[in-house]
């Protein structure tokens, strides 16, 4: 009669530990792929649609009806800014020794926005010698409120990372480039 197999003969070889090499290879490849193709380009977009020219009779009629709307234009020159708005006299912000007076322009635009909070549009009219950088800085000043500005509302944390958060603290978000 055959004897029962001893525990010694059928002893399983113990595992020598998990072989992690293929796993590490895979992760390394994935990392290189992600780093290469998701190169962090800190580029963002500013919407600046061109002012629409009323071409049809309906559009001309609508434009006439809209004559009462609140219009704000900022003329940008080498020596400073001039803001024109519906129902207000022109206001000039001369350039200081260092730079354009963006802070004062901002304060005034916030003040204007306070008169008609539903207003969204602003038109920039740069002169020929103004640089593109200055135009973008004026767009930044015009588009949204910052922390500490009058009327600033903190974004609720539950929507902070969502696109809805972009609807908060708008000043004149619809910027057009005029003078073309």
């Amino acid at each position, binding site marked *: 009669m055959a004897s029962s197999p001893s525990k010694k003969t059928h002893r399983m070889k113990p595992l020598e530990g998990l072989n992690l090499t293929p796993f*590490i290879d895979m992760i390394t490849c994935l990392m290189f792929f992600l780093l290469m193709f998701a190169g962090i380009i800190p580029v963002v977009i500013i919407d600046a649609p061109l002012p629409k020219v009323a071409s049809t009779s309906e559009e001309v009629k609508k434009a006439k009806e809209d004559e009462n709307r609140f219009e704000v234009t900022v003329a940008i020159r080498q020596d400073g800014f001039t803001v024109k708005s519906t129902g207000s006299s022109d206001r000039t912000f001369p350039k200081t020794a260092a730079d354009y007076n963006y802070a004062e322009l901002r304060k005034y635009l916030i003040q204007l926005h306070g008169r008609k909070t539903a207003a969204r549009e602003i038109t920039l009219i740069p002169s020929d010698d103004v640089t593109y950088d200055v135009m973008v800085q004026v767009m930044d000043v015009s588009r949204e409120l910052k922390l500490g500005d009058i009327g600033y509302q903190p974004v609720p944390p539950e929507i902070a990372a969502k696109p809805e958060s972009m609807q908060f603290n708008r000043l004149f978000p619809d910027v057009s480039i005029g003078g073309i």
Partner: protein
Amino acid sequence: MDAAGAGGGLSSGKARAGRPTSRMRGKGGGGSALMLASMLDILMSILFFLLKNYSAVLSDFTMGKDIVLPSSIAKIPPAAHLNLQVTQRAIILDDKEIVSIINGDVDRRDLYRDGVTIVRLAQALKAQKDKSQLIQSKSGEVQKGEQSFTGTIVMQADKNLKFSLLKKVIYTAGITDFVMLKLAVLKKEDG
């Protein structure tokens, strides 16, 4: 991940006082194994970080060479549209040089009689518009009577360029129905 469970247990663990037995030596008690677990942890952390941020930065937006973009607090990520680059040296449409820029402006010979329209740029934009409309009509994306062409264009321009040049570019885009102008800028971190 537990370090001891992924290779760390090979060299440590059952250390006893006295001389190691032949069985202990045979199991590799003499050499130290590579500690991969901690490296794996680091790699996994980086991988999760990259995967989480991948969707946020994923874009086929190509930044032009020789362009210093202005900084802005804007937050909208770039999307794939017709790409117009205005550098200090040339106007480039979809990676193809259209017009050269000399001394910060377009040569008068490249302008139409009105002194504003850049002729070759207008032709190139018109060709792009026709191509876009043709593709849309062939693919059946457009319903009858529906406006197919949105006229969206992304402009990357050097921050030191003067408006005298940019207005010619913008005007030319406008008369060829590219009115939805989007300006590419660098994101200002502090907002």
